[in-house]
């Protein structure tokens, strides 16, 4: 076999063949075709195979989001989550020009809405212009709900349950963030050690994890500052303009009490002048000797995002532009107190399913719930920092819980398309340990 391979290499690269060549491009193409038949190691096989285009691929043809605004004071503070979703779905319809009658299901991730927001979101889809035949569900996988919504739709398309669907996420932390989101734990849960850990607040357990895993404040601040700087640069260069669909909402000015109609088109969390040094001055929020503070954790925000998915063959039939394809997804549980290590566990599993190595991946979009856990995961996985969150992340422009996953999908595909890169991975840590 080795002999055969050597033989072809000699044949394929023999100067005689190339010198006598009347149309070098054609010969070169034939040569690379025969080489591709032979393939190399199984790894490189699967890298090229995930880049192959096949009619049964699940592809993204449109992905967008609202701008993210600060919870409680941003321009979305008086807009209900369902309204944000309705406006985003409407924008998706307009931008993709998909016939709403063809969309069979919409999955919406959200975390804080009572009852999962299922009733409101169905109503929102109808208000956005979808017919009654388009089904809607809401789902909650904590911070990863929006991502799970996209995966659920992709799986439903793969399994043949639907042909066209929308994965989306929405959160109005202004109106729904607070202690009411979790009910009292029963004695049964309280008396089980690991179960009781599920309600330890995120900040407290991340502080503990930062201590246990020796993640220094300096590292966290440097990572957070770079997130701000990358996001600012991207915003100034207009790199978010493609994924952001502006929305017009009502806003009550807290100073004058005046009602205004405003069109929001930019993330308000992104701001200039943030450096590791300036973050270094902020007081820790969860412990006196702690390292986590408002500047190196994700911001509380409002926003919505939506991703249109279908089979490649359907996209070609409808003339929808293909932004990229969905290859594989994974979910892994981790101890509730170490929820921040989730991406470190889940990314290798997803890469294994796709059959590619971590070096094959061009962009990693990893949620920055806290700089501490993001830095730790990136370091433990050995990812080059320049491949991680090239346009910044939740520290810079916010983390509307249920929405962020869908936001990451839209950010990732937009950035892959813009830079002409091929393979992206998105991952996030999930409260209660996933």
């Amino acid at each position, binding site marked *: 076999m080795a002999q055969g391979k050597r033989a072809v290499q000699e*044949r*394929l690269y023999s100067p*005689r063949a190339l010198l006598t*060549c009347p149309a070098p491009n054609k010969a070169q193409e034939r040569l690379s075709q025969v080489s591709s*038949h032979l393939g190399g190691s199984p790894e490189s096989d699967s890298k090229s195979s995930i880049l192959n*285009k*096949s009619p049964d691929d699940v592809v993204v043809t449109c992905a967008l989001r609202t701008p993210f605004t600060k919870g409680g004071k941003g321009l979305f503070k008086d807009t209900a989550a369902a309204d944000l979703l309705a406006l985003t779905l409407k924008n998706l319809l307009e931008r993709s020009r998909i016939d709403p009658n063809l969309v069979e299901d919409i999955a919406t991730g959200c975390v804080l809405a009572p009852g999962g927001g299922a009733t409101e979101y169905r109503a929102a889809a109808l208000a956005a212009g979808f017919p009654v035949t388009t089904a809607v569900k809401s789902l909650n996988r904590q911070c990863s709900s929006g991502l799970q919504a996209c995966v659920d739709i992709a799986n439903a398309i793969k399994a043949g349950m639907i042909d066209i669907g929308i994965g989306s996420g929405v959160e109005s932390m202004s109106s729904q963030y607070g202690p009411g989101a979790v009910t009292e734990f029963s004695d049964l849960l309280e008396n089980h050690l690991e179960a009781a850990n599920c309600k330890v607040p995120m900040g407290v357990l991340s502080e503990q994890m930062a201590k246990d895993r020796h993640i220094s404040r300096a590292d966290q601040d440097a990572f957070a500052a770079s997130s701000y700087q990358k996001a600012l640069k991207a915003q100034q260069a207009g790199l978010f303009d493609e994924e952001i669909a502006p929305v017009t909402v009502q806003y009550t000015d807290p100073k004058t009490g005046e009602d205004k109609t405003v069109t929001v088109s930019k993330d308000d969390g992104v701001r200039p002048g943030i450096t590791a040094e300036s973050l270094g001055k902020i007081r820790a929020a969860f412990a006196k000797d702690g390292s986590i503070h408002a500047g190196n954790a994700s911001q509380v925000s409002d926003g919505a995002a939506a991703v249109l998915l279908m089979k490649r063959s359907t996209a070609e039939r409808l003339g929808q532009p293909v932004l990229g394809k969905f290859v594989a997804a994974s979910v892994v549980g981790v101890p509730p107190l170490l929820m921040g290590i989730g991406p470190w566990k889940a990314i290798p599993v997803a890469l294994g399913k796709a059959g590619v190595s971590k070096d094959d991946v061009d962009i990693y979009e990893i949620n920055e719930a806290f700089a501490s856990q993001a830095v730790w995961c990136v370091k433990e996985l050995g990812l080059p920092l320049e491949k991680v969150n090239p346009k910044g992340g939740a520290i810079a422009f916010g983390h509307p819980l249920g929405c962020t996953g869908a936001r990451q999908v839209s950010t990732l595909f937009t950035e892959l398309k813009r830079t002409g890169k091929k393979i992206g991975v998105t991952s996030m840590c999930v409260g209660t340990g996933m």
Partner: protein
Amino acid sequence: MLEFRTRGYQGYAVKYSPFFDNRIAVAASANYGLVGNGRLYILELTPQGIQALKSYPTQDALYDVTHSEAHSFHVLTSSGDGSLRLYDSSLAPEFPIATFQEHSREAFSCSWNLTSKATFASSSWDGSVKIWNPERQQSLLTLPTHSCTYSTQWNPHTDGMLSAVCSDSHLRVWDLRTPASASNHLTMQIPIHSAPFSGGVGKLQPTFPPSEALTHDWNKYRSTIVATAGVDRIIRTFDIRQPKGPLQMLQGHGYAVRKVAWSPHLPDLLLSASYDMTCRVWTDGGDHGGQARELGSMGRHTEFATGVDWCLFGSEGWAASCGWDERVCVWDVRSFMHQ
């Protein structure tokens, strides 16, 4: 085993004549089909070994050859310049009697209609399958596949049904009896890489990434069975009545499979030729659930084996193969079967 050397030209395809038990056509190319000329050989098996009856030079590489089902001396080739050329080996001149030029890229396969015998099909890198009548310069029909199409074959049982496999890892089946519509007669599009059909419920199903399909063939006895093979080294059989996934997966080749051919004599037997330099003979277990397995391997080729075909006549089991070692081998499959 009989041998013939196609000196200076590496074999790409070999076909036994459906009319003469001693005649073989071989499509070969200089410089491994990358650049330069091609050559069509019409070989004859004689008591003195294999003799070249005719050979035709061509401008560009030849990738496939097929015999006319209607005329015993007509042979059709498909070429690197996208052209299809029809030769009459009973006539003297060295040039084709007809040329069909529509494909804009390499034409990788040609196949004569086995039922109506009046038409033939070709497939090309330009992402199309074309159907032709030898008496007309223009194609009768173009069926788009949108990706490099390595192989097209007519169903030997049903008139007007043909199929193709492409680099996008799909098996397409067209039925020309269906009315003209936006689907271009496409009746089936089977993902070759899908999980096996008989995996059983609850068992963990292995998954296969898509990979380029290079060859396929219709079973000569079971009208709904097709074998496909390609870059992922696995030969699969499909029943088009149950297009969810493959029935059987035959694994053993060390490199991509270039050609598969079902036996004209036995319903469960097929031959394959591969980049791993072997030709192998397999059984798919037949219709009654026998065990699918490799029955034997022929390793005489010293370079990629690219073409293999069964002899339709005489004692069952003679086959011809060709390869990049510039050799055409004629051999008895039974002598290579494991005991």
